[in-house]
């Protein structure tokens, strides 16, 4: 187990290293002139030259990349013309827009994204697994047909359509909820939950549909297996067969998917945040893309990439815990 974990972590680090090289190459080396972008639109050639020197852009590419990695591990000192500015250990550079350390900007935005993701995940696992199990047990009936169509429609609906539908229903027509505006959990937990309700629902409905379909087919498959038939033959109660034994085997692929999907979930979170105006990582990404604030863009991509890699390792471990037939080697 420990050996497996160490190997997976090493593999994950390798993937991240490759990812960082690709990202660095794509964003800093390929097109355009980062110095001109960093300096702003009203810079004369002399100022651009100064910025290029400050950012170390006149050095060879591999040296620059090395400094970038060094910054992440040990921090980096930037000369600001008059003195030096220290950017602390996981240093992802300074924003072109306001010279703030990117790491700080990202940490500022994390709570909103985490609130959205965790809340929505709880909701969609409950909804998705519940619907999936129900439609697997009611095989062939009208419930099953309705649920199949509902989930098919759910997977086909982009999150911004669900979101708009929810807004129109709950904010404009019924007027039960105000237009969401983010309140930090630490300020007022009740207001936080009320304001997050619509974003959670919008994101959860989309994902729940996918999980319902997966849970259903995986549940059907497990129910057809020999050991379940044996339990039946022993006269075990149907409830304990389904709830205790079948669900456990059926949930393994659900867990695997929930982690493998992390990347697309961040994409949908980005859409949800933009739609409801939540100050999260996704919104930061979109605004910094539009202002071509490369260090921030690179920082967010790297952070989300890391999250995906970690989630994948976690998924494999959880998969083995849920399904004892899988051995970690």
């Amino acid at each position: 187990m420990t050996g497996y974990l160490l190997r997976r972590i090493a593999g994950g680090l390798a993937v991240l290293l490759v990812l960082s090289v690709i990202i660095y190459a794509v964003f800093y080396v390929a097109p355009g002139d980062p110095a001109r972008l960093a300096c702003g639109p009203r810079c004369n050639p002399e100022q651009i030259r100064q910025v290029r020197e400050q950012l170390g852009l006149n050095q060879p590419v591999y040296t620059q990349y090395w400094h970038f990695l060094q910054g992440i591990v040990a921090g980096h000192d930037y000369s600001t013309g008059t003195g030096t500015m220290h950017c602390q250990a996981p240093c992802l550079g300074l924003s072109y827009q306001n010279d703030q350390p990117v790491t700080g900007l990202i940490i500022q935005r994390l709570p909103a994204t985490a609130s959205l993701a965790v809340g929505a995940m709880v909701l969609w696992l409950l909804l998705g697994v519940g619907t999936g199990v129900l439609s697997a047990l009611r095989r062939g009936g009208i419930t099953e047909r309705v649920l199949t169509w509902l989930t098919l429609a759910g997977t086909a609906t982009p999150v911004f359509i669900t979101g708009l539908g929810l807004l129109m229903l709950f904010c404009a027509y019924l007027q039960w909820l105000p237009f969401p505006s983010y309140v930090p959990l630490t300020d007022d937990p009740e207001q936080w939950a009320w304001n997050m309700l619509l974003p959670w629902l919008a994101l959860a409905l989309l994902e729940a549909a996918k999980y319902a379909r997966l849970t259903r087919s995986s549940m059907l498959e497990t129910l057809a297996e020999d050991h379940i038939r044996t339990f039946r033959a022993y006269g075990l109660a149907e409830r304990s067969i389904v709830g205790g034994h079948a669900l456990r085997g059926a949930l393994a692929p659900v867990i695997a998917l929930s982690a493998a999907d992390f990347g697309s979930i961040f994409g949908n979170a980005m859409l949800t945040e933009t739609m409801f105006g939540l100050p999260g990582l996704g919104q930061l990404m979109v605004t910094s893309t539009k202002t071509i604030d490369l260090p921030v863009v690179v920082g967010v991509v790297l952070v989300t990439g890391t999250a995906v890699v970690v989630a994948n390792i976690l998924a494999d471990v959880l998969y083995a815990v849920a399904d004892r037939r899988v051995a970690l080697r």
Partner: protein
Amino acid sequence: MTQEIQQEIQENDISGARQVLRRLRARKSALAAAIVLGLLVLFALAAPLLAAWEGQDPTTYHDGLVNSAAGGVPLGSFGGVSAEHWLGVEPGTGRDVFVRLCYGARVSLVVALGATVVQVVVGVALGITAALGNRLADSVIGHLTDVLVALPFLAFAVALTAVVPADFPRPVLLVLVIGLLNGVGGLARLVRAQTLSLKKLDYVSAARLAGGSSWRIARRELLPALAAPVITYAAVLLPSNIVMEAGMSFLGVGVKPPTPSWGQMLSTATTWFRADPMYVVLPALLLFVTTLVFTVLGDALRTALDPREASRLRVGRAGRAGRRKESAI
């Protein structure tokens, strides 16, 4: 009884493609989806004709048709529906909604189809190369697909638009970005695994012993056998490409205005959902129907290409009929 067997023999005689088509036609939902899809394609192809018929174009502002005192709400009921503007006008600008929807369909379908072609070509090429090539090629491609799968692809796609020169044609950029990021890694993995198991089959060994080159074996022996799983995968990717294009337009990094796109219209709609619900409903409905139609067709295609899958999971009427047949025997 004998009739049924005869029919089965006949069915095995006709070519694979025709058999698949027959199975597709037998499913009512697939047939309905195909008809709706045909209408949508017609809607997109005939955009200039439809515009001429209505007598409008997608970019002309009609300031007289919106209430500028109320911030630009369209005058008249249902978002300004009239004999001149069949589906009303856009809030704020007064541009014709019907024509913008027609042209938006073009962007959506062309980008999604183009991206799917890129995904299939690149994914199949990578997968086959990894399976047939030497160990170096396999490990390089293996790491590349690991990274591609780990990428939060919508985030990366959005980020890429920051570094591409502004004069690069946007639809081409969207096709490339979506095509190279969304699902290529998964497809390459699938093709590699399939090719590895095909490679062990006798007929491929025979072709190799007969002196066929790797390229010839890939083209003549492997590609036809790979068609079914690749088509199934592509059918899942297509609607997700549509959603991705709409999502990128929604975030403001899709096609450049004034070119109309559904995602862009929905993004404008988020500020108008109270005052002009019609403007939300129309693009949302079209986008929803388009993705739903592709999802239904993809689902039907999967079961048509792999009947084993269908009989294992089939439910409802067809399943019961199947069981009756068994008991009759």
